C-alpha cells in the first residue's frame, strides 16, 4: 500500500465521519423531532444540532485538505484513464464535486456564525446553509466513491 492509498483511505474515513455529523445535524434542523423520541428515526432527528458545528467545520477542512493532497495523483492516474475510456459523465460529476467542495469551503465561516447566534435569529439561514453543506458532502462522498471504483482500489 503506497502513501496515496493510505491518504485516500484516511480521506474516506474522515468523509464518513463528516457525512454522519452533517446528516444528523441536517435532520435535526430540517425535520426536528419531539424529545424524548421513542423511535430510531426520532432519536436520529432529535439530536442537538448545535453540538455538531465545530466537528463539521474541522472534519470538512481536514477532509478537503486530504482530498487536495491526493488530487494531483488523481489528475495523473485516474482522470487520464477516465478520459481514455471516454466516460464523460464520470469526469463531469467529478468536476462538479471539485467546484461544489470549493464553494462549501467559502460557506464554512457563515455556517459557523449562523449556528452560534441565538436560536431565534437566522433560523432559516442556518437551516439552508446546513442543507446546502449536507448536499455538497453527500455529492462529494458518492462521486468520490464511484470514481474510485472505476479506476480500482490500489491499481
Amino acid at each position: 500500500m503506497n502513501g496515496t492509498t493510505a491518504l485516500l483511505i484516511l480521506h474516506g474515513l474522515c468523509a464518513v465521519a463528516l457525512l454522519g455529523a452533517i446528516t444528523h445535524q441536517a435532520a435535526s434542523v430540517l425535520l426536528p423531532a419531539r424529545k424524548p423520541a421513542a423511535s430510531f428515526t426520532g432519536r436520529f432527528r432529535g439530536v442537538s444540532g448545535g453540538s455538531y458545528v465545530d466537528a463539521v467545520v474541522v472534519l470538512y477542512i481536514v477532509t478537503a485538505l486530504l482530498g487536495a493532497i491526493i488530487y494531483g495523483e488523481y489528475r495523473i492516474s485516474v482522470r487520464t484513464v477516465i478520459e481514455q475510456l471516454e466516460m464523460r459523465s464520470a469526469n463531469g460529476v467529478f468536476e462538479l464535486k471539485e467546484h461544489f467542495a470549493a464553494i462549501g469551503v467559502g460557506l464554512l465561516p457563515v455556517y459557523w456564525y449562523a449556528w452560534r447566534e441565538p436560536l431565534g435569529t437566522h433560523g432559516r439561514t442556518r437551516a439552508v446553509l446546513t442543507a446546502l453543506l449536507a448536499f455538497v458532502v453527500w455529492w462529494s462522498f458518492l462521486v468520490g466513491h464511484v470514481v474510485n471504483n472505476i479506476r480500482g482500489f490500489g491499481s
Partner: protein
Amino acid sequence: MRFAIVFAVVYAIAYLVCVERNYALFTYHPAIGEWGVGVEKGRDGPAMYWYGWMASSTLAASLAGAAAMLLPQSAARRLPAGASWVAAAAAMLAFCYLLRGFFLR
C-alpha cells in the same frame, strides 16, 4: 457575522469568475510535483489550477470581508444573511450549466 456573510457571497462569485476566466494565483504541475506563480501552461503533463482558483477567491473574499468590518453598525445590520446561501446555490447551479457538455452529447 458581517465578515462571514460578505466572505461567503464574494467567495462564491469570485470562485465562479476565477474558474471561468482562469484567474489562478498559482498553478500546480502534478506530473513533476512543481508549483508556478500565476497561470502557467502544463509542464510535462497537465496543469492544475483548482488550488490557485481557491486561493484567488479566498484572497478576494477576505479583502471584501475586511472591508465589511469597516461599515458602520447601522449599515452592517442591513446585510441579509440569506445572501450567503443564495450566492453559493446560484454559483453551484451556474457550474451545472457550464459543465453541461459533459452530460449532453
